[in-house]
């Protein structure tokens, strides 16, 4: 039963992620993001990471994405975005780069130590993976800039 629910959640995560990337209505994309973060929260809870799951739902789904949704509503961005194959190619390229970057970073991490706590994780990230952290910061900045670009009133 648990396994069926787990696979159902995986499918929901994938579907909502596709909805975020492919929807031509910005509002539906934001809604997809909300569903995505909520379902990831449920998955964390199912996997026994209850606190992380609750934080995921309360902070991301209940806080941040509501603000994004509100901004989209206030700026009336519900209208359909122009779709071109070039934009699809660009987003696929960016997705591939980010995926390779995350895959490379995670594959080199060593989680074999069972007494691994949050402090160790912080030490490891700050000492051994500083450039990865900085790159993630740049990536988040790029996301913020893209939000500004999307919300620009032409």
């Amino acid at each position, binding site marked *: *039963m648990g396994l069926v629910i787990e696979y159902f959640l995986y499918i929901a995560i994938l579907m909502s992620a596709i909805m975020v990337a492919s929807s031509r209505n910005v*509002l539906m994309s934001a*809604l997809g993001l*909300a569903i995505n973060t*909520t379902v990831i*929260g449920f998955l964390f809870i199912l996997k026994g990471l*209850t*606190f992380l799951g*609750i934080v995921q*739902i*309360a902070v991301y*789904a*209940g*806080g941040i994405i*509501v*603000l994004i*949704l*509100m901004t989209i*509503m*206030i700026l009336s961005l*519900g209208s359909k975005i122009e779709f071109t194959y070039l934009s699809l190619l660009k987003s696929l390229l960016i997705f591939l780069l980010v995926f390779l970057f995350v895959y490379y970073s995670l594959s080199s991490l060593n989680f074999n130590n069972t007494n691994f706590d949050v402090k160790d994780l912080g030490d490891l990230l700050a000492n051994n993976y500083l450039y990865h952290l900085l790159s993630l910061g740049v990536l988040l900045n790029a996301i913020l800039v893209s939000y500004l670009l999307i919300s620009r009133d032409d």
Partner: protein
Amino acid sequence: MGFEVFLTTFVLSLFVLNIGFGLTVMNVWFERKVSALMQDRLGANRAGLDIQLPRYLFVLKPFIFVLAKLGLINTLFCDPIKALTKEDFKPSKVSAILHNLAPFAAAFPIFLCFGFIPFGPSFEIFGVKISPYIVSTQFDLLFIFALTTVAVYGTNLAGWSSGSKFAFLGSLRASAQMISYELVLGLTFLGVILWYGTANLIEIVNAQKTYWGILSMPLGFFLMFVAGMAETKRGPFDLAESESELVAGYFTEYSGMKFLLFWFGEFAEIALLSLVLSLCFLGGWHLPFISIPETFAGFLLGHLILMSKVVFLCFIQIVIRWTLPRFRFDQLMLICWKFLLPLAIINLGLIIGIKWAWL
């Protein structure tokens, strides 16, 4: 999962849902009768009096007479029949999916929260231990907080998908109000968790056997009460549906059962707030100097005590709604950010200080 576990959970879910719906309907009745009381009217007391029953059902007549005089026929029969049979009006050029989804998104998370509420002490009957809750985790309070934050999507989407300026403005007001007051509510929840050292509601109630939480955290009780009332979007915080400005706010374009779902969600929120306040600050099913045995009679007594507190708090909320005038929107934001939020931080600091210094 064994069949017995499934059956127990199913029966408990029915029990909890029954209480949740019961409290919600009670709030609808309170709204009708308490508003009449506050305005020196009799309120609903006629519907059902003229009902023509067959001769063999004459024994029901006194029962129906009492129900009609109390105004319960309106709440129990007229409202649901009206909502179920009314046309499901949908404005043209609206997003049908979002328009249909919004009422469920507003009401469903609130009813989900009832699953974490213990409705009395555990008891043994025929050698079987029964606990009157569906789920009990170490994070009960946090679960309730997380689920109430998700409920904001219902109001948000309802306003957007209706394609009406009134509904849209109402939803924007509701979203801003709910997000702002969630901060205060979250900080107060944090204070409660720090004070009791747990977020499990049963452990919180059992920690109040000797003295109630309201005595140790009066500021916390005040903050949770005010912020919770603002979260329910009821008067004097009913900016989102202020009828003199926005017709009916974010659910202007809804009718029938969907409209009722929004109303049900709001009244369920009142019941949920009263339950959480009773469990965290008013001792839950405990009364000072009375110890409740772990028997079925003990459960009934504990349940009665808890429900009395909940009904009292619901009554107080409806009285406040019909007493105080509505705030202006800038006043609403001012109260939250310049008054309640600093108070919540002070409350948290006080709790940390007291716990660190004396306990």
